[in-house]
């Protein structure tokens, strides 16, 4: 079939549409590259077979298209007229879907997209945020047309724009593109209209147009999908461009790693030639143009235009100096215009709807839309096209679904190896050229790799530099040698051999290379390093000064991810191995080398170790916390009186510790073991701090805590109860009589919510509430209680109310359940015990009766909008959504603050929220010889963090007082080596014993009963021993 006029196009379109309209159902199967590797071809074939077997040929049309965009949910099948999207369709599912949807006429919703947050299915594609948020211009045909059929392309409007363009003056075509404001989508962002104008004005004679389909940026796959899904669209765009500039020959340079794209484009070019859309006298206009594909051979630098042209010429892909620019002297010495695939993909839409239409999208300086490739630690990876100016936060959360598995967003790398990272604080950044450049990043080709807290930014910088060094063509010294030197420095840092001067050297080298490298590859090579240095300097410093890789990636600096995540650095694989071998007391002693509170932590720790457990990628994370509890309880019950320990002789130095909480007692413990005389001053009548007063006994029984405190006292620590510094004993006395002081009085004072009515009778703040219960005071609890807050205190208060006889307890929290700081297990147990959880609600005021007692709490509903500086969606009040919860008691549990009368702000440096400023390096305050840690320095934080601070303080104090800073951890314990498991099986956690919910609420008995020995050993055996080297 030859197409020689617009009438021909119209006829073909009509014929195709008529043919399609004959059937009621249209089934579209996604054949994008990702879906192909997910097995869509088998699913498609199963569908075709089903249609044939059931003689559905007149009821159903099946189209095999290109990429629909939601790659992680493939294979995708879309059925019209209803517009239902089916995800992860296997061949069996395909048969079932056709059977039910087409034959019976019912929609099997269980096969459609599942919104993980609400737990509900969303059957219609137009309602799925991933799709509804997009504006598809470049991707207009992708996932819709049969990529192999010219008729299908024409029926969807293909080549109409070409017909229009060929009827215009060449100059007018250039003007239309200029009007649109289209900027190069390959990364340069140069105005396409201006580029074409330069090509148009260049000297007459042989001219070339080239499509840069090298797409070398790792993480970018937009161009690949465009070629595989809408090859005719690309061809059309190139013909229009060639006409505008006056070129008769065009090349598409595709990288060798894209064989499917090469294949599909070759077929499309052949068909276009047969139809007369390529070749001589195109559409009767007199214009001649033909297109050829050139395949790359694996060189990233060939994405740079001069290198690309040399590669097309069959030479080494080395860049050459610019000027001369390609439009002056390019391929084979002739004027050449080079554009990216996505740029060309936009051209037919611009010529069809007009430049002004295109310019109505986007921002002032960045018009139109952009296709982004979402990949990395993101729930829904794939392709999304949004208007320029769409925020990064919305792209990551609304379209991408956020970071999966409770991970936290850390940064998004944009622009590939030439780009930079955007951090949590900048999630409100509009995605457009200038806003991104201002942040030190670039738009790049649109590849966006999302990184969670498990990514080390130093390692990422090293990764990009390794890539660039490998791909450097070697022609110019700054790039060839400069990148290698930068890589060496980064490698040393990741190995734990970093030096202080390295950071300055990196900056210097980066500056030099940027200014002197010959081509874009070299000039942008330092960008990822500069970007990570700018936003993640603390990570570099941690690697160099503290030998610490927080993300748990640089393996030279830690034993295992779990040990690395533990603030106290406990040798987790070590004690797993000991439990496996039945050496429970050894396991207990191993833990105690790093943490004197195994029994406590085994019950209340937030266990950051479990979040990093590698086993979770296989089945489920190890129950590290519960196993710690097991060995602690075992040791307590089988205590041996003699422990072979190392004792240091007493020295003549005295240290005072203010506060007998976990931090203070840990510090005292380690200092006593080094021979110091340690006096701990505690204002209350019991030691333990928040462990004694802030945690109910059903989570942490009294005797467990007291046992561990007693063991600490046995090291030689003197605890002085009922002694408040500033009242019973003066701070000055401590300064005069002790050589060092450790302050750790915590944050004992509850924060006010700050709403009217907070002073009414029946408002009982969370922390004092729990304290009163623990001190044995008679606490009267209302019938209907509302708890405000989402942390452990709120959960503990709520569950205590249930046990004390409240009829109904409601917890309100202003964000969503998954944002609650409380441990997941605590929330689950609370709900099992009958506590009601209301999320996205915020208190407005406490309402009282005429006697001044609480009668209700007025609340307002919240919705989540843009992003705060921590990268979390910000809750905002919904107007006129107030409602009242009837209640007779309100317990606010919204964090705490510190207060200490014995030092004033004049004596010591305080932070804006009242905690003490301490040096990150050694925990010293602004007063010489006075150290601080735990909540007093951090603000409300976890017990294990406080314990880690206590350890660090002990080491710093020892150093300060002339010691080595090395703690006395006792005799080394030999750990059994890892054995390769030839018979490993997938198995989730072994079960723990728990009290049944009905029994629990009768009193304050401990809910968690711990592991039986058999299960403990089995559970420990699941450990993968990530410490083996």
């Amino acid at each position, binding site marked *: 079939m030859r197409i020689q006029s617009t009438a021909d196009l119209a006829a073909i379109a009509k014929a195709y549409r008529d043919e399609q309209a004959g059937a009621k159902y249209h089934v579209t199967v996604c054949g994008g*590259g*990702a879906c*192909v*590797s*997910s097995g869509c071809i088998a699913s498609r074939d199963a569908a075709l077979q089903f249609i044939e077997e059931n003689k559905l040929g007149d009821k159903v049309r099946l189209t095999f298209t290109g990429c629909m965009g939601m*790659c*992680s949910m493939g294979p995708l099948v879309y059925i019209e007229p209803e517009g239902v999207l089916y995800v992860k369709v296997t061949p069996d599912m395909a048969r079932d879907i056709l059977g039910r949807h087409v034959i019976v006429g019912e929609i099997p919703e269980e096969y459609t997209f599942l919104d993980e947050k609400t737990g509900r299915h969303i059957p219609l594609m137009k309602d799925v945020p991933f799709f509804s948020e997009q504006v598809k211009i470049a991707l207009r045909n992708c996932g819709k047309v049969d990529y192999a059929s010219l008729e299908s392309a024409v029926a969807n409007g293909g080549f109409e724009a070409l017909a229009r363009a060929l009827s215009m003056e060449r100059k007018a075509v250039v003007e239309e593109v200029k009007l649109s404001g289209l900027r190069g989508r390959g990364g340069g962002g140069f105005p396409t209209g201006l580029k074409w104008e330069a090509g148009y004005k260049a000297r007459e004679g042989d001219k070339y147009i080239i499509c840069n389909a090298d*797409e*070398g*940026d*790792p*993480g*970018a*796959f937009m161009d*690949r999908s465009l070629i595989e899904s809408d090859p005719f669209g690309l061809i059309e765009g190139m013909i229009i461009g060639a006409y505008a500039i006056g070129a008769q020959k065009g090349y598409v340079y595709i990288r*060798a*790693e*894209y064989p499917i794209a090469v294949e599909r484009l070759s077929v499309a070019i052949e068909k276009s030639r047969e139809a007369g859309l390529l070749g001589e006298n195109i559409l009767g206009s007199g214009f001649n143009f033909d297109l050829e594909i*050139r*395949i*790359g*051979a*694996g*060189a*990233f630098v060939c994405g740079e235009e001069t290198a690309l042209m040399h*590669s*097309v*010429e*069959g*030479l*080494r*892909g*080395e860049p050459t100096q610019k000027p001369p620019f390609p439009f002056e002297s390019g391929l*084979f010495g002739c004027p050449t215009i080079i554009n990216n695939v996505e740029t060309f993909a936009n051209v037919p839409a611009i010529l069809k709807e007009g430049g002004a239409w295109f310019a109505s999208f986007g921002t002032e300086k960045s018009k139109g839309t952009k296709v982004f*490739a*979402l*990949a*990395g*630690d993101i729930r829904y*990876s*794939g*392709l999304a096209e949004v208007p320029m100016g769409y925020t990064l936060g919305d792209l990551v959360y609304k379209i991408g679904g956020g970071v999966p598995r409770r991970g936290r967003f850390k940064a998004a*790398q944009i622009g*590939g190896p030439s780009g930079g990272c955007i951090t949590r604080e900048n999630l409100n950044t509009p995605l457009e050229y200038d806003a991104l450049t201002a942040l030190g990043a670039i738009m790049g080709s649109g*590849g966006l*790799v*999302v*990184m969670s807290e498990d*990514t080390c930014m130093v390692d*990422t910088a090293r*990764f*990009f530099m390794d890539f660039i060094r490998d791909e450097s*063509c070697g022609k110019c010294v700054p790039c060839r040698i400069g990148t290698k030197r930068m890589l060496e420095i980064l490698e040393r840092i990741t190995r734990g051999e970093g030096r202080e001067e390295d950071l300055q050297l990196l900056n210097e080298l980066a500056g030099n290379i940027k200014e002197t490298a010959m081509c874009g590859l070299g000039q942008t090579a330092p960008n990822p390093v500069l970007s990570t240095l700018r936003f993640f300097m603390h990570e570099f410093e941690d690697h160099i000064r503290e030998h610490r890789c927080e993300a748990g990636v640089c393996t030279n600096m830690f034993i295992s991810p779990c040990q690395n995540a533990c603030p106290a650095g406990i040798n987790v694989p070590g004690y797993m191995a000991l439990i496996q071998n039945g050496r429970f007391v050894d396991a207990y002693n191993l833990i105690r080398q790093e943490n004197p509170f195994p029994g406590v932590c085994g019950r209340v720790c937030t266990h950051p170790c479990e979040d990093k457990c590698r086993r979770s*990628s*296989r089945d489920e994370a190890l129950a590290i916390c519960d196993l710690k509890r097991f060995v602690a309880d075992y040791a307590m019950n089988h205590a041996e009186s003699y422990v072979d320990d190392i004792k240091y002789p007493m020295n003549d130095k005295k240290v005072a510790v203010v506060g007998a909480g976990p931090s203070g007692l840990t510090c005292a413990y380690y200092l006593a073991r080094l021979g110091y005389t340690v006096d701990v001053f505690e204002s209350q009548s019991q030691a333990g701090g928040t462990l004694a007063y802030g945690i109910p006994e059903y989570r942490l029984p009294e005797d467990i805590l007291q046992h561990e405190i007693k063991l600490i006292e046995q090291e030689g620590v003197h605890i002085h109860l009922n002694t408040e510094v500033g009242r019973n004993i003066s701070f000055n006395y401590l300064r005069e009589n002790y050589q060092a002081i450790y302050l750790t009085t915590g944050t004992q004072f509850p924060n006010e919510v700050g709403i009217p009515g907070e002073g009414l009778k029946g408002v009982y703040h969370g922390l004092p509430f729990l304290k009163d219960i623990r001190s044995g005071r008679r606490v009267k609890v209302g019938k209907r209680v509302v708890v405000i807050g989402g942390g452990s205190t709120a959960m503990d208060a709520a569950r205590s109310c249930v046990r004390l006889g409240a009829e109904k307890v409601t917890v309100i929290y202003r964000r969503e359940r998954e944002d609650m700081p409380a441990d997941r297990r605590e929330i689950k147990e609370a709900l099992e015990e009958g506590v009601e959880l209301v999320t996205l609600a915020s208190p407005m005021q406490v309402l009282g009766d005429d006697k001044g007692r609480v009668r209700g709490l007025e609340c307002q509903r919240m919705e989540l909008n843009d992003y705060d500086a921590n990268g979390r969606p910000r809750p905002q009040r919904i107007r006129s959504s107030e409602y009242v919860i009837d209640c007779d008691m309100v317990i606010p549990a919204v964090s705490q603050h510190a207060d200490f009368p014995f030092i004033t702000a004049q004596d010591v440096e305080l932070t804006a929220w009242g905690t003490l400023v301490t040096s990150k390096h050694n925990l010293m305050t602004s007063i010489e010889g006075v150290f601080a840690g735990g909540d007093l320095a951090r603000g409300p934080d976890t017990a294990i963090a406080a314990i880690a601070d206590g350890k660090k303080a002990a080491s710093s104090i020892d150093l300060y007082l002339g010691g080595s800073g090395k703690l006395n951890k006792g005799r080394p314990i030999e750990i059994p080596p890892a054995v390769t498991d030839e018979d*490993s099986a997938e198995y989730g956690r072994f079960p723990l014993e728990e009290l049944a919910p009905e029994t629990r609420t009768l009193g304050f008995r401990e809910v968690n009963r711990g592991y039986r020995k058999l299960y403990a050993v089995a559970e420990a055996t699941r450990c993968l021993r990530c410490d083996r080297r």
Partner: protein
Amino acid sequence: MGTDTKQANLLQDDAAEEREKLDAIQAVIQTYRDKPGCLIAVLHLAQEIYGYLPLEVQRVIAEGMGETLSHVSGVVSFYSYFSTVPRARHAIKICLGTACYVRGGKRIVDRLEEELGISVGERTPDGKFSIIITRCLGACGLAPVVMIDEDVHQQVNPDKIEKILAKYQ
């Protein structure tokens, strides 16, 4: 006596195979020699025919295309796709593009090196597998990705590598 003949026959078969391959390469050269800038395409096709591009084959191509050997050699050594040493039956290409790297691509490399007992870039002694780090395959939506022959394996779990390898003989 028997083994000598067998050896001789094998050698003859090898030689015949070799001639066939070189003839095929000549045919490719003839198709492309007059089109400008087609050296890279010729090298791709030649490598598909011969398996790799040793100096002898480069010489043949240079003569046929009317270029110097140093020119052809320069192009072969520049592009990572071209190999001057024989390749394994099954090339295991592990993508270490950013997305795959972030999703644990490095652990897959370490695991494979452990499993097969070779390092990246090497071939197993039986010639069955080789480990190659490849540039981004553009399947980032399904990272981490490993490509063996023409098959793209997605969301690869390092603990399940053996199962994947078992499919390839």
